């Protein structure tokens, strides 16, 4: 599910895709993941799972993503902001 298609890239779409990735890797229902939650608030997070989440983010959005961003006390919406910023930056490079 690549999101790098032209025009599809809204902050809302990024946030939704991010929640999907987090829910799948942590194996928890997507509904329990709210924008204001931190990833470290979620259940049984481990460094391996965060690296796996970072790997999926890179594949889904076609960007380089540092896994430390995930637990540097930011909420999920802040992580989505960072992904959105990197996507826009990536596109400017290509354009």
């Amino acid at each position: 599910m690549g999101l790098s298609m032209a025009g599809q890239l809204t902050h809302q779409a990024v946030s939704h895709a991010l929640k999907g990735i987090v829910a799948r890797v942590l194996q928890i229902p997507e509904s329990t993941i709210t924008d204001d939650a931190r990833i470290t608030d979620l259940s049984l997070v481990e460094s391996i799972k965060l690296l796996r989440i970072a790997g999926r983010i890179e594949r889904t959005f076609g960007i380089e993503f540092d896994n430390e961003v995930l637990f540097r006390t930011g909420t999920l919406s802040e992580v989505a902001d960072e992904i959105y910023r990197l996507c826009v930056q990536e596109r400017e490079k290509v354009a």
Partner: protein
Amino acid sequence: MSALVPAGVRTLGEMFVRASESHPGQVVGTFFPGRCLTFHELVRDGRLAAARLRSLGVEPATPVAVLLQSPVDFLRITGGIALAGAVMVPLAVSTGFTKAFLSRMRHVLADSGTRFAVIDDPYAEPLAELVPGLRVVPLSRLAGPYAHLLDDGDSDGDGGVMEPPQAGDDDLALIQYTSGSTSAPRGVALTHRNVLAGLRAIQRGVDARAGDVTCHWLPLSHDMGLFSTLAAIGGGIAVHVSAPQDFIKRPDDWLRRFCDLRATVYLGPAFGYGHLLDSVPPEDVPGFDLSAVRVMLNGAEPIAPELITAFQERFAPAGLDPRAMTPCYGLAEATLAVTFTPVGQEARVDWVDRDVLNDAGRAEPADRGALAARGIVSCGVPAPGVEVRIVKDGVEAGERAVGDIEVRGEPVMRGYHGQAPLPAGGWCPTGDLGYLAGSALHVTGRRKEMIILGGRNHYPEDVEARVRRVAGLYRGRAVAVVLPAGHGTGRPERIAVLAEAATARPPHGPLVSDLRAAAAGELGGASVDVVLLGRGGLLRTTSGKFQRLLMRDRLLAGTLDRVLEHVTAEERVRSAA
């Protein structure tokens, strides 16, 4: 012909020179951006780096810290330091200079007296600013394409032959800082004799053969990664190393590349095998060819019996020989290798009665299906040149008695850097607990308060130092303890943070969330149990010292008083107020 470091070689520098003379075309490579160096090129670059280090003031026995991300560059500079007769101090590189990284760096430099550090160019200036008094050498100064321009004339710049200065085999070769907490790091001081004996122990343990290909993803600042790679070079064997993140983020691509390289020897901690199981579903397995794999070393952290059988069954359709899985045991204090499951023998699990093990400290054989049965994976028998004994109440314990594991032999350090050497007789306590059955070692636990997450050591005192700075605590009072794995419940080993809340009034969600996020910062993102207590709830001795183990035992028994809230690592934190 088994691939051993030749008998006459007595220092790391001689090993590099001999490897390039006997196996000039053999390669050291990375994984994805397929960058390779032949042994000849590796030692040629090493000689140039040694000459340049000397021109910068590095003399024999001078410690030099190495913080390089690419495994190939790391090995070029390892060769350079060895050929200069200097002392290697490998350090892990964290992408950004986090506070924790800098604090650890300063303690290590103070403990080792290191005044030189070789680092990738982009980080040279920032590090020099952050650690004044340290002579920071960018990699390009030693091994870059233009480094020869800075040579001051005397060396002819294209590898003037320079024999390694006579570092004796009892001179210091390396100080390894993988044990000890951030504030009190302990440097494992290894001489050339220790290191070479350790490399030969690894080679014999895996029955290294010409034609082997070693592949792994461990950082070379970690003893398992560094010494298994040096053992390959010393034996004239090809070795390919990837960055850890490449394995974790793209395990299926990594495994495909591993098959293309026709790897025969793999090594890594238990969680790596779990990661491959999670990432390669059964239907994808036939697409891989693992028939060339001879040995898969499994060490550095506790091994669950079911992980071994699950891995063997999952990858059998890829042609993986079930005997390849080779549980082993080792530690930095013994250079690396202590015991191996003999090559060609399947991994063995010793089923014992859990209650007799915990209460009487004895490994009583039990039927595998019994309710109270616990499977302990055998780590095999001591490598040649290494002895293992179990000590209980100061006396060597008998067969199947659980006690402190101690090791002795030529690969074992004489002591921690700057501290009193080990007592006569050279038995080195490992801090691990276990028993011998026949001559096979079984590890059952750990005496030192530490937890291994993702193959890396983490210490409660480091988590404590971090969480005490969280706002909302009463006088910054918090402690951290290690909760043992629940063998019955399948709950993994984890850390619990016990903290006094400034206010007893709910909601406590935001404070719990802040504590968990702070601890995660120290544990690479791992979540912890959080126990909030009222003011004065933490138990202390009359002298004011926190009684951590007493609180842990009461927490486990459910008899800890003044608990306002207990959120376990599995639960979700309601951080919104």
